[in-house]
């Protein structure tokens, strides 16, 4: 049984004003059963949001009848056994349960003031959210664990207009802590970018060093690399990294750790969605691939240790976790930062571009890692200086080769979350010699 129970408050900002305040209470329970058969075992799954006895019984019966008809899987042995879990990282902020819609609206109003300081700002939209919840996992093998967590964050999207030119800027913030000042600061950053994006010039197609900020990198990573280190996809031969454990898959400056115990991080948790204790482990160490991510099924199929990476999520959507069967993903994927500031990284670049985000990263080919992306919020870098905003630019490439071209990281780590299994903590990075089309 996997259950969540939570309350989320959010506000929507549209047309330079707070459009609506919303409070959502959501509880639900996913029930999974396993039936042993002569030639293996089968599972069945159902979920409910109504916890009345009749509804739950009916759901359990449905799960059992599904398991009965499914063909037995010889690799399916059992569910997670009882195990000791660590103390959780600090992911609960006591201030959040006391937050009212009016607190978020005050924050939204401050963000609007911050974003609208310049008269060229013509449109502002965004959101602020705060939520708290409890996640519980229990099974008939004795697992019975739960933890509480909070989340806080938002985003701001700013459009500036001046003499027929349009500039767009945006920024995001997310944390398990109530960090209202940091969130308000995103509004100023978004407005600043939008204004600096005014009057863009075209870029000569060619080969450039590309500096990528954290939000863009997260989008790209989640849609390519993260899907390639999932053991379920590796076992189905759907990852270009199949058979590459112990090999060099990235440049030496790349160390990636899956860390479920990062303070403040939204992916931190003491156990995974099957109740397996989580642990910090390197995925890529100085460029060498160390492990894939497993849940109880993929681990027992291969006869390896379960890494505790069972998560319930879908790539493109916002379904509650309890409506889904366990899949696989990282908790917090941490790209080891470098030393310098972001400005120092830009200083290193003779001829390049700075990119905030990508458009269309979800159209990347997971299996091959190939992508063709439009770039968002682009600035030209010449001899270490940002010289002008760039109109329409595109890159085509391949995730495995980009990891090899990744040379330098700044020290400005930021947490970017796109949902469960989708948290990347990374600095701004420099990718050398990418082909950029106009």
């Amino acid at each position, binding site marked *: 049984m996997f259950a969540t129970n939570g309350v989320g*408050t959010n*506000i929507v900002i*549209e*047309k330079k*004003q*707070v*459009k*609506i*305040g*919303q*409070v*959502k*209470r*959501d*509880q*639900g329970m996913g029930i999974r059963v396993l039936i042993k058969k002569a030639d293996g075992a089968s599972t*069945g*799954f*159902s*979920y*409910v*949001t*109504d*916890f009345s006895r009749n*509804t739950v019984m*009916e*759901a359990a019966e*449905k*799960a059992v*009848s*599904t398991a*009965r*008809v*499914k*063909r037995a*899987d010889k690799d399916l042995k059992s569910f997670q056994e009882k195990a000791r879990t660590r103390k959780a990282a600090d992911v609960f902020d006591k201030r959040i349960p006391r937050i*009212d*819609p*009016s607190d978020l*609206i005050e924050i*939204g*109003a401050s963000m609007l003031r911050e974003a609208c300081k310049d008269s060229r700002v*013509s*449109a502002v*939209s965004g959101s602020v959210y705060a939520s708290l919840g409890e996640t519980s996992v229990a099974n008939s093998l004795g697992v019975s664990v739960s933890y509480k967590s909070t989340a806080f964050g938002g985003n701001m999207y700013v459009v500036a207009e001046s003499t027929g030119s*349009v500039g767009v800027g945006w920024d995001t913030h997310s944390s398990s802590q109530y960090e209202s000042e940091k969130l308000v600061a995103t509004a100023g950053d978004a407005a600043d970018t939008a204004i600096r994006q005014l009057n863009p010039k075209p870029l000569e197609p060619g080969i450039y060093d590309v500096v990528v900020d954290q939000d863009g990198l997260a989008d790209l990573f989640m849609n390519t690399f993260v899907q390639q280190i999932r053991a379920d996809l590796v076992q*189905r031969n759907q990852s270009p990294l199949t058979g590459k454990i112990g090999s060099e898959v990235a440049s030496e400056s790349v160390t990636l750790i899956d860390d479920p115990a990062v303070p403040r991080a939204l992916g931190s948790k003491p156990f995974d969605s099957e109740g397996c204790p989580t642990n910090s482990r390197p995925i890529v160490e100085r460029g060498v691939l160390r492990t894939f991510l497993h849940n109880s099924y993929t681990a027992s199929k291969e006869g390896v240790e379960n890494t505790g990476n069972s998560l319930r999520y879908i790539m493109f*959507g*916002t379904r509650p976790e309890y*409506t*889904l*069967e366990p899949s696989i993903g990282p908790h917090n994927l941490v790209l080891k930062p470098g030393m310098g500031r972001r400005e120092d990284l830009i200083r290193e670049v003779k001829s390049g571009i700075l990119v905030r985000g990508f*458009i*269309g990263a979800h*159209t990347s080919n997971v299996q091959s890692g190939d992508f063709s992306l*439009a770039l968002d919020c682009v600035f030209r870098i010449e001899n270490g200086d940002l010289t002008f905003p760039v109109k329409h630019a595109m890159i085509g490439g391949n995730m495995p080769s980009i990891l090899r071209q990744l040379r330098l990281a700044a020290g400005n780590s930021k947490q970017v979350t796109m949902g469960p299994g989708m948290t990347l903590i990374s600095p701004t990075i420099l990718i050398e010699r990418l082909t950029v089309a106009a």
Partner: protein
Amino acid sequence: MRIAEKAIALCERLGAEYADARVERTYSTDIRLMKDTFDQVASGADQGLGIRVLYKGAWGFGSSTSLKPRDVSQTVRGALKAAKATALHTHEKASLAEVSAVKDVVTATVKEPMRSVPIDRKMRLTSETSEKATKVDKRIVSVTVTYSDFSGETCLATSEGTSLVGMPSRGSIVVVAVAREGAKVGTIRERNGMQAGFELFEKVNPLGLARRAAERAVKLLEAAPAPSGRFTVIADQKLAGVFAHEAVGHAAEADHVVTGESILKDKMGQRVGSDLVTMYDDSTYPEGWGTSFYDSEGVPTEKRVIIERGFLKGYILNRETAAQLDMKPNGGARAQSFAYRPVVRMSNTYLTAGDQNFEELLKGVDHGVYLKGSRGGQVDTAKGTFQFSAEEGYLIEKGQLTKPLSDVSLSGITLETLMNIDGVANDFQMSIGLCGKAGQVVPTGTGSPHIRIRNAVVGGK
């Protein structure tokens, strides 16, 4: 309905000037079969309440999956609190265009209720579909079949006296076939669905979808990379339908119009396309995937004219944008479920048929590209630019389809493209889809005949 009415009464006691409540109890089945393995078989039972309130021109919304009286009351109070706090910071007050209150019960025509069909029959349908596609050719290396159904009971009550009960029922099946030969890979998706009981799967013809997906995937193995440049393009019904939905339909959503994020703002009555372009967003389309009698605000829906013979005639409106634009509401507000607020959405969006046949469209092309199907793409409704990847393509030479093409995309400026449509065939077809907006996904229909576009930008790899 009692819960919804109680919630409304509480809103009024707490000072709301308007409130609507939606209470739902729905059931769903989601099955995914990937390479002969069921990697998802989920039966779901969802219930909950969504309450929307207007207080001094400001909106608040609350939802709860628990319907216990204490949780309902807390949800209503939370929505009101949110509206009251919003009211302190809203300079443009929201108001609602007037509509008459309605009382009605709407039931989908169902012979075999989704819930009465045991899970093994649904799983068997899924695996037979997969087998059919796999058997088409030995180069088919992977087949994924997704079965979904949804049914239940919904009700809507408003403080103006509207009270609607709905008994929705729908189902769909999606087949993705992958063919491989050496390093060449071809992927094709086919899908179909209807609003009816389980009997709909006879009409939807999953085996036909499976065969078509597999045959098209194999065909892609012969395809060569597409040329890039400006060409005369013929788009098939699916791609043209996606263009109508993504590039034009979203721009006709009145919320984008009032925020200024639409190329169709200030264009009412003006020419936006060639004489051959007539486009509807039609919530009343018979058996349509996006069809409904009432929208999520309880407004009776319509067949909305968006473009008539090239001239912009209408937008898709909810009650709030209708008031802002001083237009008559036309039932264009939809919510994914009780847990979401209604937003302006499309229903079944389509370009109407012309009187030429496909061969006549082809004959007029000396050197061009025929594009079929859609793998998705991007649209900027504010700037009016779009880019779609087609599933497959063919070179057109001297009025004949010649070489098959892969990795081919169509991009352009929406209004220019509408003006450049110079041929519309008589072979209209509807397809089903899912449309995402404001974090909500709703079923939508898209349709079109084959259309011919002059001077379009085609991208190859």
